[in-house]
C-alpha cells in the first residue's frame, strides 16, 4: 500500500502532476537523474527535493524503491526481492583480489594516489588494475596531489555508489569503526588526524587534473617507480 501523502500542502493538483512527471522520468531512465535535471520538466517553483522525498516515502514499501545516489535519484528494485529476480547471470568475471583491494582502498582513503594505494597493500599496483576499475565506471581520476611529482589522485564515482547501493560515501560499511580505530590514516595512530573519504570536488592539497589527463586518461608512468 502506498502511504497516504502526509503533507497537505503537496496534495494540490500541481504537486500531484509534478509527482507523476517525476515518476515517469525516473522510471523511464536506467541511470540516476539529478534533481536539477528533472526540475526542467516541472512547473516553475516546484520544490523538487520535497517532491522526491514524497515519492521516496510512497515507494518505500513497494517492490520498486526510489533511492538516492550521491545527488542523483533512481528507481531500483527493492533489495529484499533480489533473490527472486536473480537473473541467469550475465557472465560476470569476479574482480581479482588485487582489484578488489585497490577499489576498497580508493573508496575508503580517497583521494588516494597510486603510491598511497601501494603503501596500504604493500605491493606495487599494476596500472591495469586501476584502469580496470575506471573502465568498470567505479573509479575516476580526481585531480593531482600538490606534492612533488604531482601524482594523480583517485576517487570513486557515482556509478560506484549506485552499484553498491550506497547513498553517499558516508554509507561505506564499517566506516565509523575504521575512522575510530585510526585505520584510515596513512600514519601511525598516535599522531594522526583521521581523514575521511573525501566527497567534495577537490581537497586542499589537490589540484585539478591537467587538460591532457582526461583525454587519454593515461597517467604518466614516471609518477610510479
Amino acid at each position: 500500500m502506498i502511504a497516504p501523502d502526509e503533507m497537505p500542502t503537496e496534495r494540490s493538483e500541481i504537486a500531484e502532476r509534478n509527482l507523476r512527471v517525476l515518476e515517469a522520468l525516473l522510471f523511464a531512465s536506467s541511470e540516476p537523474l539529478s534533481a536539477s535535471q528533472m526540475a526542467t520538466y516541472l512547473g516553475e517553483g516546484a520544490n523538487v527535493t520535497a517532491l522526491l522525498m514524497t515519492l521516496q516515502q510512497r515507494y518505500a514499501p513497494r517492490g520498486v524503491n526510489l533511492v538516492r545516489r550521491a545527488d542523483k535519484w533512481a528507481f531500483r528494485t527493492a533489495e529484499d526481492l533480489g533473490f527472486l529476480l536473480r537473473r541467469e547471470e550475465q557472465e560476470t568475471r569476479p574482480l581479482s583480489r588485487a582489484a578488489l583491494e585497490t577499489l576498497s582502498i580508493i573508496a575508503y582513503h580517497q583521494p588516494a594516489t597510486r603510491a598511497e594505494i601501494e603503501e596500504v597493500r604493500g605491493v606495487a599496483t599494476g596500472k591495469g588494475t586501476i584502469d580496470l576499475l575506471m573502465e568498470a565506471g567505479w573509479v575516476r581520476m580526481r585531480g593531482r596531489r600538490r606534492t612533488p611529482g604531482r601524482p594523480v589522485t583517485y576517487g570513486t564515482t557515482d556509478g560506484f555508489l549506485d552499484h553498491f547501493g550506497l547513498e553517499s560515501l558516508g554509507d561505506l560499511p564499517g566506516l565509523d569503526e575504521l575512522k575510530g580505530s585510526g585505520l584510515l590514516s596513512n600514519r601511525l595512530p598516535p599522531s594522526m588526524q583521521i581523514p575521511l573519504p573525501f566527497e567534495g570536488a577537490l581537497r586542499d592539497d589537490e589540484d585539478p587534473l591537467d587538460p591532457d589527463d582526461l583525454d587519454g586518461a593515461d597517467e604518466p608512468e614516471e609518477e610510479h617507480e
Partner: protein
Amino acid sequence: MTTAQTDWFDTPVPPVAEDVMYVDVNGYEGPLDLLLDLARRQKVDLASISVLALAEQYLAFIETVREKRIEVAADYLVMAAWLAYLKSRLMVPQAPSDDEPSGEMLAAMLQFRLKRLEAMRQSASQLMNRPRLGFQVYARGMPEPIEIARKSLWEASLYGLLKAYSSQRERGVATDYSPHLRTVWSLQDARDILQRLIGDSFDWVPMDTYLAEYLASPTERATVRASSFASSLELVRLGHIELKQTETFGPLLMRRNPDRKP
C-alpha cells in the same frame, strides 16, 4: 606478482608450521600479504601478535625459499632486511642517545599496516556482499530514454514523381536518332574562296562584299563569316593580303598585299 584468482575471502586453511616452506611465494600479494598470513597463524588478535615472532617466521620463510633457489622478488628481500633490523631493535634495548625510532615504535608501525590491510580486505568483502546493482538490485529493464529521435520525413512532390516516371519511360524507349547535319565552311574552303575572290584586286573592299553571295543563306552566315575571318588572318600572316578596320564594328576591309607579286 600474479593475482590469486581463487576466492580469497575463504582464506586458505593455514598450513601447519612445517608446511610453510612449501608455500609458493608467488601466491602472495607481496610481503605484507605474506606477513599478514603469518600473523593470522598466530591465531590471536592482530593487536596482540608478537611482532618479534612474526619477524622471525618471515625471515625463516624467506630463508627456506632462498635455499630452494626460488627467485624471490626484491620487495620480499627489502622487507626481510627491514624485519632483520626491526628484530635487532627489539632485542637490543634502546640507548638514550639513539635518535632512531625505537623497536616498539617500528613494531607498532608494522602492526598498524597489517591491521590496515586486513581492514581494507574486510571492507572489500563487505562491499561485495552488499546488494549490488545487477545482482540483487535491478535497474529499469526497459529504459525509455529521453531521446532526440531524428525522424526523417521524406519529401517528394507529385511533380517529382511524375517527372521521375516520365523520364524513365522515355529512357526505355528506343528512338531513331538522326544527327542534324549542318553546313560548315572549313578553314581551307574559306581560304580558297577568299583567295579566289580577292584575286589581284589592290583596292580596299569590305569582306562582306566579297562574301555577299554566301552570306545570303541565314544558316550559313555565321560559319561563313567566322571561317573567312579566321582564314583572312592566316592570309595576312602569310603576307598574301592586308586587312584594316577604320572604326569599331566598321566593315573589315581587305586587299591583295601590293608588295607581294603573285
